[in-house]
């Protein structure tokens, strides 16, 4: 443990000791701990209940995805990306397919882009629902878990009807979509649009003004916008710290530029603001889905892509706004059928690095809240 010193560039101080005679205590949290959302191990340095420093030990789920990519063709690697952030598999697939399309200089047809946007936004809602349920459970509110899982089912049903899978969907292909929408797809999506807003109200009724929730989340895990940028933190965590930045707006991909939606931001950068930002994001996603499902054009769903994908020699970086932050793919092609190198820039991995900054001086119980609010998926942290 040598990281009790604050990282450079950050406005951080190691908190002063609270109890005169108490010794520092090193406490191990995880990897088999229900509140670490997978196999994350955090070594806490404590003074009484106060956190003096943390060290994350990760890699328990490392599968060498980047190495696998070098030994598969572009098409064969596509299903693997779903297994990184497995609660937002559709977003992962979108990022990868678009990166390869950029290398090939191919553009997916408009109808494919609309289908992509609908499914990606549905997946964003599903990911936020899972986050809300487990985060609230960690803090001690059990009911939201049942509500969110009940409603998430409706989204998974649409995925299942569309492509046969509920979680690791492999919904998109390089150049567009494999499957045409099923009969009744639009009706199902519209039903969901009517079904879901009252459910968000229901979640908010349980939590937004709940006194216990407020006590556990307000002023907990505060991080400033400046620190977020220095630490590379993206997604809802960055926005809750007051930085209005979303790749869907800043550097639009698919056809997000055509849709009207807001980027919610917070002011305090605490756990409560991050909660509010994600709640508003779910409503904004519904807005995008509504515009997309009403404007979905007819036409082909697959661009003209060669049977054997052999992008010209070159390299590309493409990133999208995944539910957790900036998900980027850096692909180097040597002109063969297999990528020479695929680098995944995982939002969870980079965001997790901010844990130390956020919990310094907080209590042990707040560590649980902060891990929840960062919304990490260990499959993506470890790859």
């Amino acid at each position, binding site marked *: 443990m*040598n*990281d009790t*010193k604050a*990282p*450079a*560039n*950050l406005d951080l101080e190691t908190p002063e000791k609270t109890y005169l005679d108490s010794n520092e205590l090193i406490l191990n949290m995880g990897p088999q701990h229900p509140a670490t959302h997978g196999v994350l191990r955090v070594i806490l340095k404590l003074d009484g209940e106060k956190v003096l420093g943390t060290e994350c030990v*990760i*890699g328990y789920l*490392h599968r*060498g995805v*980047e*190495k*696998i990519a*070098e*030994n598969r063709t572009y098409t064969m690697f596509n299903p693997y990306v779903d297994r990184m952030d497995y609660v937002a598999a559709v977003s992962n697939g979108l990022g990868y397919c678009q990166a390869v399309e*950029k*290398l090939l*200089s191919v553009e997916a047809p408009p109808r494919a882009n609309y289908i992509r946007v609908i499914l990606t936004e549905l997946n964003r809602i599903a990911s936020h629902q899972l986050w809300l349920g487990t985060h609230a459970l960690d803090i001690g509110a059990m009911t939201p878990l049942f509500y969110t899982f009940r409603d998430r089912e409706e989204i998974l049903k649409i995925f299942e009807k569309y492509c046969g899978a509920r979680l690791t969907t492999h919904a998109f292909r390089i150049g567009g979509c494999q499957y045409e929408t099923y009969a009744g797809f639009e009706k199902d999506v519209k039903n969901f649009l009517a079904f879901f807003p009252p459910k968000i109200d229901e979640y908010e009724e349980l939590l937004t003004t709940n006194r216990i929730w407020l006590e556990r989340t307000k002023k907990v895990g505060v991080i400033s916008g400046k620190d977020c*940028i*220095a*630490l*590379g*933190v993206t997604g809802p965590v960055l926005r809750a710290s007051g*930085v209005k*930045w979303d790749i869907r707006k*800043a*550097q639009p991909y698919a056809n997000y530029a055509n849709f009207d939606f807001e980027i919610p931001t917070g002011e305090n950068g605490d756990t409560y603001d991050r909660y509010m930002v994600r709640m508003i994001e779910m409503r904004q996603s519904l807005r995008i889905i509504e515009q997309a499902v009403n404007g979905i054009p007819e036409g082909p769903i697959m661009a003209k892509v060669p049977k054997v994908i052999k992008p010209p020699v*070159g*390299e*590309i*970086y493409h*990133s999208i706004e995944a539910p957790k932050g*900036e998900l*980027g793919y*850096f692909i*180097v092609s040597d002109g063969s059928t297999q990528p*020479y*190198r695929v*680098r995944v*820039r995982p939002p969870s*991995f*980079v965001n997790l*690095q901010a844990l130390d900054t956020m919990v310094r001086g907080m209590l042990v119980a707040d560590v649980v809240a902060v891990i929840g609010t960062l919304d990490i998926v260990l499959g993506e942290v*470890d*790859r």
Partner: protein
Amino acid sequence: MVEKYKRQYGSGIEGQSYLGQNCLIVDRSLFPDILQLLCDEEQFDYCVDITAVHYPKREKQFDVIWILYSFPRNERIRVKTQIADGESLPSAVPIWPTANWLEREVYDMFGIKFDGHPDLKRILLPDGWKGHPLRKDYNILQQDNEWVQINLGIESGQ
């Protein structure tokens, strides 16, 4: 921008653009000054990613790549340099704290050392592991059998 730095640094710097994405190819000797300049003067305040690519047949085997983004300019740029096996690079942690884990991952996967890193050790693989898996000479089925046998008590992980 490239012109300005070319005048300042001479031939050690070169601009490249492919599919609308800009890349600076910079000589190893200009580090870390060039990164500091990009952060301070060109407002590339967000280090998106640091990664490497291994070309075993080349004399300078590794490409190290920094992907940067500027919030004020809404612009991305890549900085690339070539280094030989065993050569190290100055750490970017004093410039962008986010480089900490990213550099540890590059070290873990490629064995590239970063001078001045506060805590350079493996991040995804266990501390005692031998080899750096993303090097091209590391076979996909290869593993550190000794580590597996001692620590997991099984013959092989496959």
